């Protein structure tokens, strides 16, 4: 088989368990978690790639890969199924000498050096599959090329009081990184790493091989590869990103990111034109139906849904049913959920295929300053008739 040489290919780390999403990732990898009515989290980095003219993406999967593999399929929804481009799922596999799980982010890439080499790329873009954002990677790669860096790391400005939760890049005025601190107690700057890296492939390959030989390494980009590059005097640049970006690694942040889509001027505008559209695998569903007695206020409703009740400040995903006199408020309803007559759902994330039976009550209401507790149901859960799922409770 002939492989065309590529200027840049992307490697998307999609193997994370996402254990902080609790019941939502019990049987699903985090990148496959539904988002925004008809998307899954992985659609964002994948669509960003396509919109940035990156047409070869290796997707590293490990934890609960079945649904994710099925979702990506041959890459057709993202236009990545042509003869010159691909979306290739890369699970860990048995080798002649040794076989093992991906031990860390760097090890996952190390184990797929063979895949990368086939395209002989100048640059490799490392992405993670658990962030919601739209970004033009082409601009970042152009910056990387222009500055002549060995590695460029995308950073965003975070409030100083939150900086100790992130990997912080301390830079000189020209953007050169001189120090990296993982979750510093006393942060010196507010440039938080977004986990998006552009590497010169030759340099990265060399460091991956060296890192693998170091038995004390955790084989992690943030903890091992970046510090090693800094120690050896390589040129690392910070690339500042100013748009919306959210790590949806927790129940609260997943709920917030969904709510950020709502409103006349949303915090994150999911709509987009030619180069900012988010692509997803689409099912053959009819248009949605909104009944005579329905009320739909400040909400997204995806195709295939039938609404007979009231929906306020919520996301209703594909193929959902909201029955008569049911109320859905401040909630994320994932695909294929049935909310029966008179049921009430507030401040909740309802997992795919869940059935909320007649008269059941999920979650609670909060004032603007009160601390919310999000109720969650896992995939295909059933909340029985006239029962209650308390605020913050999980099923």
């Amino acid at each position: 088989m002939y492989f065309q040489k590529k200027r840049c290919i992307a490697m998307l780390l999609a193997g994370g368990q996402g254990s902080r999403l609790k019941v939502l990732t019990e049987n699903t990898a985090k990148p496959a978690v539904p988002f925004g009515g008809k998307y899954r989290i992985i659609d964002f980095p994948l669509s960003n790639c396509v919109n940035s003219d990156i047409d070869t993406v290796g997707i590293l999967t490990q934890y609960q890969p079945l649904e994710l593999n099925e979702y990506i399929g041959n890459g057709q929804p993202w236009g990545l199924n042509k003869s010159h481009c691909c979306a290739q799922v890369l699970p860990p596999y048995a080798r002649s000498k040794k076989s093992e799980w991906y031990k860390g982010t760097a090890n996952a890439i190390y184990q797929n050096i063979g895949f990368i080499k086939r395209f002989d790329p100048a640059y490799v873009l490392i992405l993670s599959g658990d962030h919601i954002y739209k970004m033009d990677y082409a601009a970042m790669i152009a910056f990387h090329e222009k500055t002549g860096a060995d590695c460029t790391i995308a950073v965003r400005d975070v409030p100083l009081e939150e900086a100790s939760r992130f990997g912080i890049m301390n830079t000189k005025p020209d953007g050169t990184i001189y120090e990296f601190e993982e979750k510093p107690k006393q942060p010196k700057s507010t440039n938080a790493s977004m986990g998006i890296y552009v590497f010169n492939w030759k340099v990265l390959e060399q460091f991956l091989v060296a890192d693998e030989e170091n038995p004390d390494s955790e084989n992690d980009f943030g903890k091992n590869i970046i510090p090693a590059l800094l120690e050896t005097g390589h040129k690392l640049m910070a690339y500042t990103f100013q748009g919306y970006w959210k790590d949806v690694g927790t129940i609260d942040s997943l709920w917030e990111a969904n709510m950020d889509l709502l409103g006349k001027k949303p915090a994150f505008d999911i709509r987009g034109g030619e180069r900012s559209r988010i692509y997803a695998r689409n099912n053959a569903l009819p248009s949605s139906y909104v009944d005579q007695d329905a009320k739909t206020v400040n909400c997204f409703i995806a195709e295939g849904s039938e609404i007979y009740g009231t929906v306020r400040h919520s996301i209703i995903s594909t193929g959902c049913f909201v029955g008569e006199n049911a109320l859905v408020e401040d909630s994320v309803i994932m695909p294929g959920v049935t909310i029966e007559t008179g049921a009430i759902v507030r401040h909740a994330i309802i997992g795919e295929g869940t059935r909320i039976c007649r008269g059941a009550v999920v979650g609670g209401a909060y004032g603007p300053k009160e601390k919310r507790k999000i109720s969650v149901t896992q995939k295909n859960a059933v909340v029985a008739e006239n029962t209650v799922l308390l605020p913050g409770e999980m099923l």
Partner: protein
Amino acid sequence: MTAMGIIFANIYDSSLGELTNKRTMASLPYGGRYRQIDFTLSNMVNSGIRHIGIISRFNYQSLMNHIGSGEEWDLELQEGGLEFLTPYSMSHNSSYRGKVEALHSALEALEYSSGEDYVVLADSGVLCNIDLGKVLEAHVASGKDLTVVTKAGIANGTKQLDLAIKLDKGGQIADLAVDYVATSEYLASMALFVISRELLVHHVRECMARNRYRFERDFLMRQFQAGNLSVNVYEFQGVALFNESTEEYFNNNLAIIGKEVRHNLFGGAHPIYTKVRDRVPSYYGEDCHVENCIVADGCVLEGNARHSVLFRQVTIGQGAMVEDSLIMNDTVVGEGCELKCVILDKDVVVRPGTKLIGTPNNPVIVKRGEQI
């Protein structure tokens, strides 16, 4: 038992006036996210038909754009798949006069198909969700030469039917008439036929040799009356919507707001496929009031809508009221507009404050791309 499909894309174009000015009947938008041909194509694919020829005579650019390689219908195949039979790709270099002539131009596709036993012939003016596998089985079991799929309750004493059939008490054909304003005891042909491939090729040749080019009149009725063609009548029990005039098209679109029609067309095990557009879900604003509506993806609804079908990526401005109307893809209804019984074609812009009032029998139609 295998079958190939033939779809006639242009039937009734002229009776839909402005709506088919720049598109075929087959590519007419329907039900929010669909084109009419999606129903015919999906019915065939859902019944295991994997070789489909689409015969079109003009205005087929939008149709080809919609269907592409057929991948949404899983017709992107090594063998069989989808064939566009357009005038210039066939032996004739002018347009055809009737379905028999069209089939004559498509003989190559029929004769050299990969050996299917039967041909299912359909047009895209009648919308339904039908299991063609059952029709094929019934055709074979009947031992007849040709099966015509029919629907009761369409003939009403005012509508002219292409083909009307009356059965006697024993279920035998008592009368078979073409271009006929039939009374309600007649069954209406759904322009859906099954015939063996060999027999079809034979009859098409025989007809054209005598300059007979119309399918229902010159072939079906004539041969049936002469005793050369036995006809099996299959009565379809599901919902069938005949879109043969602007008025029917308008009312049949609004009909899917009703639960029975909607569930009959979309609720079963056989989905209707269409081209994916990757639009975001529809957004309902703070002050909108939407009731009794079909809403496709990508809409931004800040205003009000009642008993209407809103196609993909429609915008309704604050304070506007859309009632009993069809608003097609990418159309913008400005703030404070008042619309009733209106068909806005694609890419229309209605300036704020405009008032447009039609009637159910005579909806106001605004042509594609117009600004009013």
